[in-house]
């Protein structure tokens, strides 16, 4: 079973305690934006086999949204961090690089 540590309340939360919220760090494109950007924001997804960043909610705990870095090919969890950020923290990126040299996800590496 997938276990993620909630970065707010510090609980090691089981999957049954959490709600998955899809891909992280999506940049919102609203009305009036370019059709390619709008389509990309609404529908296109990274769907990588490997390092992935996701939104999760500690639904049956503190109720807060947070972000997690996982490997979709092995289910290994690299870490979690608060949702109030536009990119993964440097320490986490370095921790991922130590385990998955040369990883790349959108513009992050």
């Amino acid at each position, binding site marked *: *079973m*997938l276990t993620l540590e909630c970065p707010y309340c510090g609980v090691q939360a089981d*999957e*049954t305690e959490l*709600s*998955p919220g*899809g891909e992280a760090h999506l940049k919102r494109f609203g009305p009036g934006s370019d*059709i*390619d950007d*709008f*389509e*990309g924001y*609404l*529908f*296109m*997804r*990274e*769907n*990588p*086999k490997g390092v*992935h960043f*996701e939104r999760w909610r500690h639904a049956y705990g503190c109720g807060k949204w947070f972000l997690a870095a*996982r490997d*979709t*090919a*092995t*289910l290994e969890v690299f870490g979690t961090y608060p949702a109030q950020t536009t990119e993964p923290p440097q320490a986490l990126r370095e921790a991922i690089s130590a385990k998955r040299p040369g990883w790349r996800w959108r513009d992050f590496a």
Partner: protein
Amino acid sequence: MKHYSVFAVAREALRQHTGWDRAWAKAEPKKKYDVIIVGAGGHGLATAYYLGKNHGIRNVAILEKGWLGGGNTGRNTTIIRSNYLQDPSAAIYEKSRSLYETLSQDLNYNIMFSPRGVMMLAQTQHEIRGYQRTAHANGLQGVETAFIGPDKVKELCPIINISGPRYPVLGALWQPRGGTARHDAVAWGYARACSAMGMDIIQQCEVTGIRRDAGKVVGVDTTKGPIDCDKLALVTAGHIGVMANMAGFRLPVESLALQALVSEPIKPVMDVVVMANTVHGYMSQSDKGEMVIGGGTDGFNNYTQRGSFHHIEETVRALVETFPMISRLKMLRQWGGIVDMTGDRSPILSKTPVEGIFVNCGWGTGGFKAIPGSGWAMAELMAKGASPLTEEFSMWRFREGKFIDESVAAGVAH
């Protein structure tokens, strides 16, 4: 290819079964093919078969990373139905169901199609209205379905508890011509027929790159060396995102794990397929006597062909309420497959931004039933450049807002 028949069985019985050939030939890649299909599952093999049979294109290779039919083709719950709400879906799924009816004869391979009937239970007032609407839509589409009451449900499937405390059975959408088939045999039958037409089925050959020149595909790199081609079909289900990445375009698809399980074999207790979408579970009995059970997908991206245990628990809990007699059954095996989910839960059969590359993906949780129709339509699209069956399933329908929204219509058990 030797013809399979009762006489062949009798002849071989008299000589200790020494005369059977391999069903399909082992092949090594040639330098160039007219068409390369990536993925030797049901959809890929069916595409190859109809390219050869309907369009005379036989210089075809089917590349498979693992073994033939070892992905979702061998991991589903083998349900065949076509009771969809939207017209484009009904057209392709009904084409598929009708092809299944004569597939054993067409392929000279017994796929054990069993049109035992599929029942989708209505367990809330909303579902009653939804399924009545679907039954009317199916009537206009030429798909034979009917909305039946709880008494008829009980008559067709006596082991159902129709007066369940939380979700009583209020009726069902009944498709008498739906049913099941032997999933491996579908892949094996198509493979045998493709091989007989001279196509190369190359297993344990992983595609590692897609070579392009001026926006047009020229070939693929594989673990068995580079192979050239004029046209390329990507039919890799859960791994379609990986292929699209190699080809340099994006798809509106996410890969999730979907699980199924079977019980120990018991004597025949149900001769229909029952789907209970409100409580997230569906069940049928295989010819061996195992109860074949499926449920919902996980909520997060996953490529491991393993799912989360709590989904199994939820599925079984729901089915025990609907079928109290299964509460003492032991479960034998559980497995997962990686399904490719699109935003509107409908497939993508389409050209792509790269000339010569075609995709057939997004079948999500309901691909097995569509294998013959998908292959038929995809072959037409690749041979002629257009097909009436694939017109609405373009990968650009999302940006145009032309969804084929079956996520509401089909619920969980798609």
